[in-house]
């Protein structure tokens, strides 16, 4: 934070290394990504950084590419609109594209970035459950070098991530999803473009009516996206009958820790989230059934 009346510094570095040096040189400096959240908070006097390090001049953060192992790397500064139209995403990776399409509205999707969104980590935002369901890896650079961390471990608590002092998100990597898998993002919101009241992100693959891959994450109903890998593992290798769907929905419901807020009561979220899981899973299975 800064003294009232002091000038805020503005930097627009060309490389990640320059950005990291600027962040290290000033404890009160923050990264400016798309501004959709940071500038809104500055306008509301909720935050007063002493310096702004704009990431918009760093080309490597603005690209998306397919890596040799089939993963897709999305640079931190890719706008939601770009990810919503991203043609590199295939099969179950499309869960992230579906989430991007449901963020806010066109002008905000033109500004907001995937790196800015996850670094701020509003638990009701659309990317976190989608990234967790896609088994995404978050790439981080900092004063001690680069590191990579699973999305499930990156999201730590309400508005808290694994980012340390002086670190920044440089991108996310979505591993190749099984061929023929589908990604579904099912969002319940009060109005189009609002943050989620509750959301479900999933990736499902089936071979001969047997589940070969399953990942289901519930968003906006706990401090971080909720998954049950133990129950997913039980279901993989079996058919997806009503009992299995109910078992996973109930197991996810056990781990929810929702709050009462302006969007819904905690009790409502507990009621609706497991139903959304069932709906999304059945929709995904129907999609795959149509392909077989």
């Amino acid at each position, binding site marked *: 934070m800064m003294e009232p009346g002091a000038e805020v510094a*503005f930097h627009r570095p060309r490389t990640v290394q320059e950005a990291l040096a600027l962040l290290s040189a000033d404890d009160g400096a923050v990264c400016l990504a798309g501004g959709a959240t940071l500038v809104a908070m500055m306008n509301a006097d909720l935050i007063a950084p002493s310096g702004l390090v704009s990431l918009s001049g760093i080309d490597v953060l603005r690209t998306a590419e397919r890596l040799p192992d089939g993963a897709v790397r999305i640079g931190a500064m890719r706008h939601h609109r770009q990810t919503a139209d991203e043609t590199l995403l295939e099969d179950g990776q499309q869960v992230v594209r579906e989430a991007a399409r449901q963020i806010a*509205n066109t*002008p905000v999707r033109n500004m907001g970035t995937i790196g800015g969104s996850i670094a701020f980590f509003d638990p009701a935002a659309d990317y976190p459950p989608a990234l967790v369901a896609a088994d995404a890896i978050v790439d981080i650079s900092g004063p001690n070098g680069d590191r990579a961390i699973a999305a499930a471990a990156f999201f730590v608590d309400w508005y808290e991530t694994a980012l340390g002092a002086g670190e920044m998100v440089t991108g996310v990597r979505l591993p190749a999803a099984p061929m023929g898998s589908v990604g579904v993002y099912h969002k319940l919101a009060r109005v189009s473009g609002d943050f989620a009241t509750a959301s479900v992100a999933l990736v499902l693959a089936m071979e001969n009516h047997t589940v070969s891959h399953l990942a289901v994450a519930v968003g906006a109903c706990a401090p971080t996206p909720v998954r049950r890998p133990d129950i997913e593992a039980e279901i993989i290798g079996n058919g997806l009958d009503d009992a299995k769907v109910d078992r996973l929905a109930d197991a996810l419901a056990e781990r929810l820790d929702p709050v009462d807020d302006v969007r819904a009561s905690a009790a409502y979220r507990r009621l609706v989230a497991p139903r959304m899981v069932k709906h999304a899973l059945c929709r995904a299975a129907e999609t795959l059934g149509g392909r077989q």
Partner: protein
Amino acid sequence: MTGHPLTLKVNGQERALSVSATRTLLETLREDLALTGAKRGCNQGVCGACTVLVDGQPVRGCLSLTANCDGAEVTTVEGLADGNVLSTVQQAMADTGAVQCGFCTSGMLISAFAFLRDNSAPTVDDIQHALSGNLCRCSGYRKIVDSILLAAKRVA
């Protein structure tokens, strides 16, 4: 507003400015360049009254920092008309009575302009989706949607 020198191309005209780091594009347009078409509603990016085009894409003026826009092309509602001849979408809004108090109108026009540029034969559903980031607190949106349908028909 000292500090960061930069240039913007606003409605086709080069403007040299010097701004503080926290000055928003909306403040620059309204207070420094006297372009008061874009409105300050919520100042939180929610209402859409400040929507302008930056490099051809609709964005929130209130969430854009001017210092971050060096070299950008900015189009405001003042840049839509050709002299005294209104653009198609402006004329359609006037003809259908889609302007009530007028506060949301410039943002609606900018969103509609960018939408019609990319979509020549939109449905009502497409239009409602495209305008979901622009709030009007006077109306039921009906005449606004009608005006954009009319504009699309006139362009076709």
